[in-house]
Each structure stands twice: as C-alpha cells, then as structure tokens.
C-alpha cells in the first residue's frame, strides 16, 4: 500500500492530474454546468489535438534533454508550404509529404547544429523560430493562399466523427499518435535510450548508446508533430495564416513542465505533457465560460506553470523520502 502510494507520488504527472480534476470541477460550477455539456466538449475536443500534438513532441524532446522553441513557427510553415504547393497545382498527398519532409529537415538541422557545434538547443531553436517564421511569410508572398478544401480529404482530418459526432477526426489522429509516442517512450529500447540520454548524458555515452542519433531523432519527431498539428489547424480554419502558432512554443514548454517534465531532461511522461496541454486548454475555455475577462488567460497559465512545478517537486520529494519497510 505504501509502496503504491510512493510510486504514485513519484509519477511526474500527478500534480497536473490533480489540478486538472480540480479545475474541471471549478469551471463546471462557475459555468452553471455548461463546461462539461456536449456542445462545449465538442468544441473543446476539436481544438485540443492541435496543441496536444505539439506538446507531445516537445515533451519527448525535453525528456531527451533538449528544447525546441521553433515548434510555433514550424506549426505555421508546414501548412503554408503545403498550401502554396497546392495552389501551384500539386495534389494534396505530395504537397503534404513535401511539407512534412520540410519539418524533418528543420528537426534534423535543429539537432545536428546543436550537437555538432555543442551549443544549447535553446539557442539553435530560437534562431530557427525566427528563420522558420520568416520563411512562412516569404513563402506566402504576403498573401496567404486559400486552401482548396475540395482537393483535401478533410474528412480524414477535421470532420466530426464517432458517436454523437463528439470528436473530430483530428482527435483520433492525436489519440493514435499519443499512444504510439507513449509506447515508444515507455516500452521500447529507443525510449530507454531517450530517457538515459536526457537523464545523464555521460552514462548513456559510456554505455554505448548512440546519443547524437537519439537526440536528432527526437528533434525530428518534435518538428514533424508540430507541422502535422499546424496542418490540422489550417484544415479546420480553411486558410493558412503566417501568424499561426505564435507563442505556441512557450505554451508547449509550459504544458510539458506542468505535466511533470524536468527542464534538465530524463524525467517526464507523454501523458503528463498531454495533461499539461489539456490543462491549458481547460483554463482558456473555462475562463471564457465563467465570463472572466479573457486577458487573464496568460496570467492563469503563468501562475499554473509555477504552481505545478512547485507541486511536482514537492510531491516527488515526499515520494522519495518515504521509507518502505524491507519486506
């Protein structure tokens, strides 16, 4: 029993889960029961996958010990590239593939530059944040193209599906990707290498793990997920905006951190990152429904980030300090 309690106290996502339950209850009361209504859930679950996908990638990368601040810009650049290619007559599938390949290149560059020149990824990806954003504007030529929705199998990505049309197809994509990432991190040897690389690099190297390749792979996954999420948003809105995803990088880091991911790597879980992203969406949505001035949103996210990190480290220490009798 105590062992179970100790294990759960050391779960990185515990504090965020508790906060999530608390906030859902509070908003449900403040919004007079509208928060958990079908109409609101439908809207909420329609938007949530976009941010949660970005947070999933950022969480994986942070567990591997690196940062990616360029995800917000990649979020805009991928669909912009795809849309521009489509206006030039490319069919959907090749255009999407080209967009995703661009994300692979950006992720690779982020990782390769960071490792080759031994500079902090904070800097590499900060540079990439500006460059990718600038490229987005350049590619769009100043006039964002309209997506020809007829040429896109939107039903595969954004149509409402399932019983009662509660979720969009994007939610299913998100679910599948999140499960895959959770599986990759938790159950495979690659996941073990990611944790070891982020947890203590010299040990991972001494044990013969190809840490550079592991990191570059994590950078690529992070970029691709950000681009994919951006594409889903553009399909939902119908037009790619050069300003899409601005500030998303910091929200994604906040989501990962709220969900228990350590800034120093090694600690965290995909589930935690997702719970962090859901929390941020819940606050956004809940504040509006509770008729609180929307300007308080960022304040709430900021306070939550600090609170969650303090809560996490407190719970973890309590868990570690907990003695279990020998048998």
């Amino acid at each position, binding site marked *: 029993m105590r*062992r179970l309690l100790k*294990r759960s106290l*050391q779960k990185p996502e515990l504090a965020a889960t508790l906060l999530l339950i608390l906030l859902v209850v509070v908003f449900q009361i403040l919004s007079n029961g509208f928060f958990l209504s079908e109409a609101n859930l439908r809207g909420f679950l329609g938007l949530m996958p976009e941010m949660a996908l970005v947070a999933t990638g950022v969480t994986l990368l942070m567990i591997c010990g690196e940062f990616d601040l360029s995800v917000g810009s990649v979020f805009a650049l991928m669909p912009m590239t795809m849309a521009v290619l489509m206006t030039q007559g490319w069919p959907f599938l090749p255009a999407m593939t080209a967009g995703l390949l661009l994300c692979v290149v950006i992720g690779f560059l982020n990782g390769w530059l960071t490792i080759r020149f031994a500079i902090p990824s904070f800097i590499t990806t900060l540079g990439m944040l500006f460059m990718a954003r600038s490229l987005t504007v350049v590619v769009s030529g100043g006039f964002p193209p309209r997506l020809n929705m007829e040429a896109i199998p939107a039903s595969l990505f954004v149509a409402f599906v399932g019983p009662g049309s509660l979720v969009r197809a994007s939610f299913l994509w998100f679910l599948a990707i999140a499960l895959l990432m959770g599986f990759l991190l938790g*159950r*495979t*040897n*690659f*996941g*073990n*290498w990611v*944790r*070891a690389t982020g*947890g*203590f690099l*010299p*040990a*991972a*190297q*001494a*044990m*013969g*793990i190809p840490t550079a390749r592991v990191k570059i792979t994590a950078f690529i996954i992070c970029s691709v997920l950000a681009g994919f999420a951006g594409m889903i948003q553009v399909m939902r809105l119908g037009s790619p905006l050069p300003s899409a995803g601005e500030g998303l990088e910091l929200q994604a880091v906040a989501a990962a951190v709220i969900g228990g991911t*350590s800034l120093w790597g*090694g*600690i965290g879980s995909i589930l935690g990152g997702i719970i962090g992203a859901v929390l941020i969406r819940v606050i956004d949505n809940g504040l509006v429904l509770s008729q609180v001035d929307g300007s308080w949103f960022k304040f709430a996210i900021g306070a939550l980030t600090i609170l969650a990190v303090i809560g996490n480290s407190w719970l973890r220490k309590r868990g*570690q300090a907990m003695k*279990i009798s*020998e048998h």
Partner: protein
Amino acid sequence: MDGNPTAAATPVISAHGLHKWYSGVHALRGVSLDIRQGEALGLVGDNGAGKSTLISILSGLHAPDSGEVRVEGRPVRMRGPRDAMDLGIETIYQYNSMVPTMTIARNLFIGREPLKARIGRFGILDERRMRAESVAAIADVGLHLRSPDALVGELSGGQRQGVAIARALYFKSKVLILDEPTNHLSVKETAKVIQFVRSLSAQGVTCIFISHNLQHVFASCDRIVAMAHGEIVLDRPAGETSPEDIQTVL
C-alpha cells in the same frame, strides 16, 4: 613483464607500445602492459600521469595514435565503448555509469535491453525479464536492494558501484575497469567496494582498479602498476612493494 615464462595463458589484455598525443601533449609515451586473467591490477599515478589516457584507450573511448591492443591474443580496433563492452571490457566511471533518474532494472540494461519483439535494432522491452534478472544479478554481488523499480538516484554511492559491478558481471565481462570507485564514499562503503574487487578475482574476472588512494589499491589488488609522465615507472606484485616505494617513484 613481456615473455614471462610463468604466464602460461595468453594475457586477457595486452597493450604494446601505446602512444597518444592530446593537442600537442604527449600523454602516453610507449606504454606496454600485459594483464593476466583474474588479476586485480592497481593503476596508480598523479593527475596527468597518463592513467586516464590509458584507460580511455582500453575502454574504447579513444584510439591510440600508435601501438596495439590485443584482447585474448587478437589485435583489436575499438571504435567506441560499445566495441569494448562487446569484447568483454567494461568500465565503471566514478560518477557516470548510472542514470540517476532511471530505475535499477532500466539502468542494468541500458544499451543492452532484452527485447520481446524487434525490428532491426529496435524493439519492445522485455520488462519482466529485466526486473527479474536485475534482482538476481544484484543479489549475486551480495547486495540486497528492496526493489528493481527504485530509482538509482535514491541509492548511496556504494550501492551504485555495487549495481554497476553487478551489471558488468551479468554481462559476463572479462575485464572490469574501475575508475576511482572509492572517491566520495564513506569508510564502510569503501570497505564494501574493496570487498567487491577482491571477490572479482575469485570469480576469475580481471580487474583494473584506478585510484589516488594507495591504501585502497593495496587493500584490493595483487599487482601494482605506477605511471608518471606518460610512462610506466613501476610494475610489481603488491607483496613486493609498498605505498612508500610508490610515493618515491611518482
């Protein structure tokens, strides 16, 4: 020690004429060393004497600029620590052989995870086997830890060294290189590590013990090799030398 007629078997590691330069510094100046199976060799020397350079060559971290390393008589070229590990040479560094944020079971198998199903190098971890065998491996070195799911960060320094040694033995390492294993350990834990080292020779495992602390080396090793200025300056059975002798040559 070359050509010693009493050494009937081939040395487990044989280094010959090793030279290494680091950015203009001649760190190793023709080091030759034969290490017999089951030997507990203490490698001593001041900072910059070349101990670490020699070890980094034997553990596959660096390649020598000239000279040859043979493992059980076969010349080898190691391109990384993994090659050394595959040859049965495992190095336990003072701090960096364990990931504190991971469990004991996960740490024991880093880079050598047993897989239930695989595609190429990648696959699904056999976690049940990892947990069961890590418990057994740790018990084999006389260490009793409450659970394979405890984080390594929660263990004491001595326990960590014990887990690292258990890991090396589990993977049937023939040669164990211990780099300053007793630094920052309490007296009691140091005794435990020295006891580990002594039990290694009994099991036929060769051990290279690097330390600043001559007492620890004499307590655990049967042969002492001292280095200074990139060369071996003393190589004797532990019974035929003393910490005082060594102080004078260093």
